[in-house]
């Protein structure tokens, strides 16, 4: 991964449990509604990227944001009708994540 930054510069590391923020504000946002408020875990840190919430409105994308691959049990997102082993994985920027127990 060419863009990976050192794991010490990220707030989270692989395996950490995280909860997606439930913010709602106007503008260009890359955190889908269905995953807001859900709890999962960090699968992998991808590194630093220009912030699309700034780029989407003609900004410079700075400061860069750390992007994570976050995994969720399908049963935690959609309920018990889902296959127990299945996962949904979403690319989420650090400022959308809070630590979870």
């Amino acid at each position, binding site marked *: *991964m*060419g*863009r990976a930054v050192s794991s010490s510069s990220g707030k989270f590391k692989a395996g950490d449990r995280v909860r997606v923020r439930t913010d709602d504000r106007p503008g260009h946002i*890359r*955190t*889908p509604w*269905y*995953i807001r408020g859900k709890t999962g875990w960090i699968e992998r840190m*991808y*590194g630093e*990227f220009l912030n*699309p919430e700034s780029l989407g409105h003609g900004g410079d994308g700075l400061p860069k944001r750390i*992007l994570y*691959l976050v*995994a969720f049990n*399908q049963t935690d*997102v*959609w309920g018990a009708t*889902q*296959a127990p*082993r*299945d*996962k*949904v*994985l*979403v*690319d*989420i*920027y650090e400022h959308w994540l809070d630590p979870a127990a």
Partner: protein
Amino acid sequence: MSDAPSEAHGHDHPKHELSYYAKRIYAIRDLLLEKGVITEKDIQCQIEYQEARSPANGAKLVARAWVDPAFKARLINDPKRACAEMDIDAASINEFVVLENTQKVRHMVVCTLCSCYPRPILGRPPDWYKSLNYRQRAVNDPRGIMREFGLVPSDDVEVRVHDSTADIRYLVLPLRPEGSGGLGEDELAKLVTRDSMIGVTDALPAATLK
């Protein structure tokens, strides 16, 4: 701006009734040409570039990975370098990640926000990939979608749906079909479909070539 595109400025417009958005894009094209921002040749070159990118690129990568374990390792660890080895230009992808299917884990890719897709590797996305139906159901009924593509993963298989919401573009590395042991790389590539690299189904059975 008139409702109908004017006909007398050097290029043809479609003769059928245009939608609002089609009229708008033709109007923007005409303005960009008139103001000298782009040329007709630029547009033609871009069309040719877009059309040149096709699932054949992805199929070449997958077939090579099936026959060459060292290449497969490079494709998974440093996908862009592996593309360069195969003369596939992946430079325009910000970050490219390959998801390997196994007997126990199966990946499927969607972009619920829009239609993010590894275009240099797979070309333009199919219409169904961009449809609201797929984008909504891929994340909460992936097994239902796989069933519609003729695939029924058993209960002990883990289905992992990747929602590509940011700068990462995902390619699924499908399982090599059973009975394909004697086939060469070019023949194997014919078994690697676009849909198998999105992950909604398997590569074609080896018997397809007979």
